[in-house]
Structure formats: structure tokens, C-alpha cells
């Protein structure tokens, strides 16, 4: 983890507009370096004031510092930007639970569960909110990854609970139509449609290439870029999955993320067939 913090700090120094501040802030928070995490999150928030994940990160750090009033404001702001933001819904649920308003806590957790039905953390917290007393409140603060930003319901469900679901995972059909997920570049711009357009037909071309070589079915395509890595997989013969991460994520790790995402995508596609 210290190496990752160093790497991310270096990346952020080179590109202050990068979204790596989200990961860096979360890692620092996990390590208990709350003042540094606070600075990182606040600087990121100044550069990305409309990014719900930035408000969510800042709120988590404020909550860790027991500044609940400001944490409430930040989670509230995240929800104004993205009404289905799971992290913000869970955060507000925690705060309501903290002041003894179990009904409001449960309502927020139920909203989170509608967006992310497969999130075990939400189910666990909801069970606590429904059945537990004040002593259980701390369980809702357990460190967890930044929750995905809100997306249309069907899209959010494809990769529910997976890392980077709304900024680094994309599911397309054979013609390049987006079925789920989203992509953002390092500046936070949504590049989903542009990338999808370029990837239309890649699956068929990969299949033709390996067939010509007598190599059987293609199972994946991993690529290193100057600023990041990508991994393509075919969850079904008619779909293409793209996973994008920055260069700090090793190719092997990316392949594991892609496998998990492909499995989730396959289940989702089968359920919607």
C-alpha cells in the first residue's frame, strides 16, 4: 500500500487534474492519515466540484474525523448531483443511524439497495438498521471502496458492486451500442460513446484473426498504453467488455478485474436475454 500511495501521489503531482486523487484519498483514509487524506480530497474537490465521488470521499474523511455536520452536507451534495449515488445513500444512512433516526437510515439503505441489489455491504447495513440498536451504528462506518456514481438503473446493475463500475468498465453489443457501465478520461470527461464507436466490430475482428491462425476462440485482449492499460473480453459471442485502468494497476490484476466483470456481464446478459 505505501508503494501505491507513492505511485498515486507521483501521478497526481504530474497531472493535478487526474482522478487518481479518489483512490489516493481513500488509501490514505484507510491508513488513518486523515489530515493528508483531507487535503487530497479537498484539492480534488476544488478541481472536480461536480464529481459525486469527490464529495463522497470528502464526506467519508469528514465522518472519520467526526465532523458529521459537514459530512452530511457533502453526502447531501453528492446526492443532489447523482440521486442514486450508493456511497452517499449509505453515508447518510450512517448519519441518520448515528442520531437514532432508524427510519430515515433504513429508507436511505433501501434506496441504496434498489440501485445496488448485489452489494453485500448494503444488505448487511440494512439488516442492522432494521434489527440493531445504537451499538451497531459503528458497523456502518467500516472502510469500503468508493461507491460507483449514479447511472440509469439498468446500466448500474450490470457491474453492481464491481470496482470502477462507472468510470472504467464498459459493456457493448456487437454494433457498439452501450449496454452498461461508463468511461471517463483522466480529466473526468465522459468518453463512453466515443470509445464504444471505435470498438464496434473489434470482437468480430479478433475472432477472425485467431480463426485464421487456428488458435480457437479468442479469450481476451490486453493492451498497454502510455497512460493506462485496457483489457477486452467477450462475455458472450455478441458482447464486448472493456476495462480501463491507469498504469498503476498491473496487467495481471487488470485481467482478474476483467474476469470478474465478464462474469457479472454474462449473468446480466443471460438474465436479460
Amino acid at each position, binding site marked *: 500500500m505505501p508503494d501505491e500511495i507513492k505511485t498515486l501521489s507521483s501521478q497526481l503531482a504530474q497531472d493535478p487534474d487526474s482522478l487518481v486523487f479518489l483512490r489516493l484519498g481513500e488509501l490514505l483514509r484507510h491508513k488513518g492519515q486523515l489530515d493528508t487524506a483531507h487535503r487530497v480530497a479537498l484539492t480534488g474537490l476544488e478541481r472536480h466540484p461536480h464529481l459525486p465521488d469527490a464529495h463522497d470521499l470528502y464526506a467519508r474523511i469528514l465522518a472519520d474525523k467526526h465532523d458529521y455536520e459537514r459530512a452530511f452536507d457533502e453526502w447531501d451534495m453528492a446526492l443532489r448531483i447523482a440521486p442514486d449515488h450508493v456511497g452517499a445513500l449509505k453515508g447518510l444512512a450512517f448519519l441518520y443511524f448515528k442520531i437514532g433516526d432508524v427510519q430515515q437510515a433504513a429508507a436511505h439503505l433501501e434506496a441504496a439497495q434498489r440501485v445496488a441489489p448485489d452489494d453485500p455491504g448494503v444488505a448487511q447495513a440494512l439488516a442492522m438498521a432494521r434489527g440493531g440498536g445504537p451499538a451497531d451504528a459503528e458497523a456502518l462506518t467500516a472502510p469500503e471502496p468508493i461507491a460507483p456514481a449514479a447511472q440509469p438503473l439498468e446500466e448500474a446493475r450490470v457491474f453492481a458492486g464491481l470496482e470502477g463500475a462507472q468510470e472504467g468498465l464498459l459493456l457493448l453489443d456487437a454494433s457498439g451500442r452501450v449496454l452498461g457501465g461508463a*468511461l471517463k*478520461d*483522466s*480529466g473526468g*470527461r465522459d*468518453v463512453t460513446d*466515443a*470509445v464504444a464507436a*471505435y*470498438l464496434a*466490430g*473489434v470482437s468480430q*475482428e*479478433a475472432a*477472425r*484473426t*485467431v480463426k*485464421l*491462425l*487456428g*488458435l*480457437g*476462440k*479468442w*479469450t*481476451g*485482449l*490486453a*493492451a*498497454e*498504453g*502510455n*497512460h*493506462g*492499460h*485496457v483489457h477486452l473480453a467477450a462475455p458472450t459471442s455478441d458482447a464486448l467488455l*472493456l476495462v*480501463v485502468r*491507469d498504469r498503476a494497476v498491473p496487467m495481471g490484476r487488470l485481467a482478474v478485474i476483467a474476469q470478474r466483470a465478464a462474469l457479472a456481464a454474462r449473468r446480466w446478459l443471460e438474465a436479460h436475454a
Partner: protein
Amino acid sequence: MTAPAAAYGKALDLITRVRSVRGAMLVSAEDGIVVAEQLMEGIKGPAVSALAASLAARLRRAMEAAGVGASLFWHLQAEQGALLVVPTTGGTLVVAVAEPDVNVGLVRLELLRAAEVVG
């Protein structure tokens, strides 16, 4: 393309020496034409090169749109083997066809070395 033709053979030698590599090619990224090749019998060089170039072009555009920059190396994995590619700065693709048990890290290294030679 900056290297003399003799250098192409040497560049391909670097790659085909790696165990489980079935062949290597230099391909023009722009039009998919084979520039030089050392392939085992049965591999259809011109067809594979055309598809590899097309795939490389799509991938390059998608990666640039995604903000991860130009591709430095890519690896198409299949049940019974792999296609590994390094684009050079001069518009050539250095391509290797390999068995499934190939040491990908080693081939990548040799492809990058070959790309430096080819330019």
C-alpha cells in the same frame, strides 16, 4: 521505417528465438502489408497482417479516446495461442504468433527490442 532491410531479419530473429514463438512479422500499420516475415509453415502471413493492422488501428483509436494514450504493446489471447504486437514510432507493427505456453513477458521484451531496431 529507418533500419536497412538486413536489420529486419535480425529484429525478427530476436523474437523467433523465444521458445513457443511460431513466427514473427513486420507489418505496415497503415495498410496491413507484410514488410518482413519469419513464419512457420501454414501461417497465412498476408491475411494475418491485414487483420492485425486493422485491429491495431481500432485499438489505437479507442485507447486514445479513452485517454490512456497510444498503445505500446497488445496481446490477443486465444485458447490455443496468442498474437502479440508492438507498434513502432515509424508506423510498423512488430508481430509475434505464439503457442499458449509462451512466456509473454519475454516475447514482449523482444518485441520492444525489435521495435527499437526497426524504428
